[in-house]
């Protein structure tokens, strides 16, 4: 079991020695039971750091932001940033390294093992508690969570309130770390692609109907894009306001900017946006589930990415985010790649 004190001691050591610029970690949120991301800059603040089943956030997004800030700075502080990572988050670092967006020396990775469980799904918990308010959620000794409400403490099995992505997780322990807390446990995952199994049985008409209904809801707030550690392009085809114009952008380049899709949240444009995002995440999405968690209208976005992850695995045996030395999925053509889908 990961002990808070150990993580805090490590953080203190890192900050005191000046080895890291700051540490991106989790603290207890204002509501008193859920975690929030926090930037710890001073050694005396390390006691804020917590670790628990409500640490949903993929903090690697802040590493991406740090890199972007650094590019803008004239004399940037080149020390690494410390970052707390779960197994899934660590794979995002692997992708950023693979794509040479960051260098290994840019991050000091403080890994925490999810051991036998993972993080909870807030909605599942709310359904379970039927209106009662949670006051505290902790890891149980076995595959369970200990949930405290005003009416007392209940033991809930992981299978009932854990996030879907944790049920399908293939990296319970961070794959790349500088320091690791917790046990290197192994957990069997009976259905690694469970969330797409049901929809795969539907006919193409039914699938179209399902997705049309889901994507109709999209308000194009781009929360999914903002929260995604892989969505780090300066320019996004989805909206013209991101188009980068720098002093050396030529008139020709400005004229070449294309409006591939319309801003208005209508179904055709929504589908276009989400399809482009899904395709651009093929072989890059590490299933941290942040897009789906951040979505204000509950679109099951993970399903799109999971499907592509499954295709990559089944067709090409490609595991996303485990080896930063390997070429990316779409640039690793091999002669023996299957071609039977080409007709």
């Amino acid at each position, binding site marked *: 079991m990961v002990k808070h004190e150990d993580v805090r001691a490590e953080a203190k050591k890192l900050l005191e020695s000046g080895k890291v610029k700051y540490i991106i970690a989790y603290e207890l949120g204002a509501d008193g039971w859920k975690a929030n991301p926090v930037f710890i800059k001073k050694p005396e603040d390390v006691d804020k750091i917590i670790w628990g089943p409500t640490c949903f956030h993929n903090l690697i997004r802040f590493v991406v932001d740090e890199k972007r800030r650094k590019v803008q700075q004239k004399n940037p502080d080149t020390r690494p940033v410390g970052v707390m990572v779960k197994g899934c988050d660590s794979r995002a670092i692997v992708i950023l390294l693979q794509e040479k967006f960051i260098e290994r020396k840019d991050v000091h990775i403080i890994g925490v093992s999810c051991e036998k469980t993972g993080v909870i799904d807030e909605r599942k918990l709310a359904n379970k508690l039927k209106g009662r308010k949670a006051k505290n959620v902790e890891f149980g000794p076995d595959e369970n969570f200990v949930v405290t409400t005003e009416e007392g403490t209940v033991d809930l099995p992981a299978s009932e309130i854990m996030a879907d992505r944790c049920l399908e997780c293939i990296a319970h322990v961070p794959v790349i770390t500088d320091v690791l807390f917790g046990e290197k446990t192994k957990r069997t995952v009976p259905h690694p692609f469970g969330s797409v199994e049901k929809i795969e049985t539907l006919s193409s008409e039914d699938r179209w109907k399902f997705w049309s209904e889901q994507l109709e809801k999209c308000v194009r707030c781009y929360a999914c894009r903002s929260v995604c550690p892989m969505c780090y392009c300066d320019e996004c085809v989805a909206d013209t306001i991101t188009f980068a114009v720098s002093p050396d952008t030529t008139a020709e380049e400005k*004229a070449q900017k294309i409006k*591939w899709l319309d801003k208005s949240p209508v179904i055709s444009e929504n589908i276009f946006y989400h399809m482009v995002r899904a395709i651009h995440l093929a072989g890059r999405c590490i299933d941290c589930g942040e897009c789906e968690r951040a979505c204000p209208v509950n679109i099951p976005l993970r399903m799109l990415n999971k499907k592509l992850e499954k295709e990559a695995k089944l067709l090409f045996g490609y595991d996303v985010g485990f080896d930063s030395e390997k070429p990316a999925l*779409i640039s690793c053509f091999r002669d023996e790649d299957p071609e039977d889908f080409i007709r």
Partner: protein
Amino acid sequence: MKKRTGIFICHCGINIAGTVDVKSVAAEMAKEPGVAHSVDYVYMCSDPGQNMIEQAIKDKKLDSVVVACCSPNLHETTFRNAAKRAGINSFKCEIANIREQCSWVHKDKGKATHKAAHLTKSAVKKVQKNESLEPISVPVTRKALVIGGGISGIQSALDLAGAGYKVILVERSPSIGGHMSQLSETFPTLDCSQCILTPKMVEVSRHPNIKLMTYSEVQEVTGYVGNFKVKILKKPTYVDPAKCNLCDECTKVCPIVVPNEFDVGLTGRRAIYIPFPQAIPASYTLDDKNCPDPFTTIACGKCADVCKVKAINYDMKPEIIEEEVGAIIVATGFDLYDKENMAEYGYGKYADVLDGLQFERLCSASGPTQGKILRPSDHKEPKEVVFIQCSGSRDPELHCAYCSKICCMYTAKHAMLYKHHVHDGQAYIFYIDVRSGGKGYEEFVQRAVEEDGVIYLRGKVSKIFEENGKIKVWGVDTLSGKPIEIDADMVVLAQAMRPSNGAQELAKKLKLGTDKDGFLAEAHPKLRPVESVTAGMFLAGAAQAPKDIPEAVAQASGAASKAIGILSQERLYHSPTVAKVLKNLCTGCGMCVAVCPYDAIAFKDGKVEVNEVLCEGCGTCSATCLRAAIQVKNLTQNQVQEMILACLGG
């Protein structure tokens, strides 16, 4: 400035006009924005057609041209040259393919006309955004590399050298000569193979323009047409050919005996050996795979002890030699289909079941039996010999689907040679068809039947097994429908030809395509049979497909003349439609670097850079880049979007 595009719609006789209403397409195009001229004509590619385009460019002051006709593979160059003659940049001419991609594949005239108009509109949108580009020019290294020292490689090298160009001939075995040096007599004239080959081998060794590198392998090829950089691994022979006086004392003392490759395993050779007496270069090779033998760690040193001229040097090391060449000819030849695959014919199980090459060695005057045909098992003269054609060929279920082409002829030759050696013997040939197309070939087969009494049995052999010292051959004669049983003394299998060992790996190094059977792929099966898909690399001999000596030699000369076509140029020109990096979008992720088939993209200052000379403009990088930060000139995202809109619109 307002665009002035000219549209020229070709009827192609009725090829296009039969399905597409060309007049209405021309009329519709005239209404398009920026179109200043729109006409149709029966054959645009004809001289009057081309003149029409040139005249219109001049008269109507056109700044770009779209020709709606056949595939750009056929006449793009024709029309681009016409545009250039009329004074506009050749890249201001685009082709709309309304034949292969429209009229030939559709029946409904209304719909086909609609589609043709949209394809043309899309080309108009593209051409209006095309940049004027000039070809990229590069100098030429006037030297050629020939890979493979069989008859094809020898012929190519001699032709190139004869034309005055320097040639490097690389052969991986210790001597040039290839399979042809193993043959006894050659069909259809029955002249001695070595007698016609060795003069050419000698010429190679004496030619001042040829640098011969035997016992060497091509390790790496980089660069592009006109300017390849090659790394060649020269394996150590441990014998200095300059000192060696061919006294043969070393082989007498060498204790290690291994199967002799030249005699296809019918005899043994020592670890230090000369492949055959006429080998070029005439020198010995110490085979370090077998010496020292696996049970000792250090060579016994006997050969060095007896060598009076001190030619043996155990300290010789492999060397990597770097060369620059302008053109490459690949003549890696063939090997026979693996024996292990022919278990049904008892190959490898019975000593007297041989393959075609082994039988050649038996017939050869320089062979293990000095030209006497004797059974390997008991050295007796075989009185009944069964030859089986298509052993491994024409069998898509189990073996090779293709016809190995030469087996009909060499089997007839084998049967004939056998009769010439053993007058009272009987030769049987099991065949599926006899394919004897070629000058003097059919007459040759007839001679085998009529003069040498060879019995041709149409059918396949079902089983071969040994009984009472005879090899029983069970088959069927499908013409009479009767089962056949022959008590043979020897069976000869006409094994299929397949690409030589290692050809696949070499093809990968050279980035050459291969066909489904592993033979090197030609650029066009009919019109470019000696060119490979990579510019500046040519194919010769059986590496490309099974072929006999005359065909291999003809192709070798063809490849040489194609290579001379490159080497004789002052400079080469390269298409300027290459990839371009948009620096402010590039994040330096390197996906394009990994995916580029031509190694044309490299990292530079955290971003990437395109080597325009290496880039072939294939667009793989552009399709891979998540950020549209790399685009091919004249096929930019912007153009693609406009083309899509034009295709979809209205």
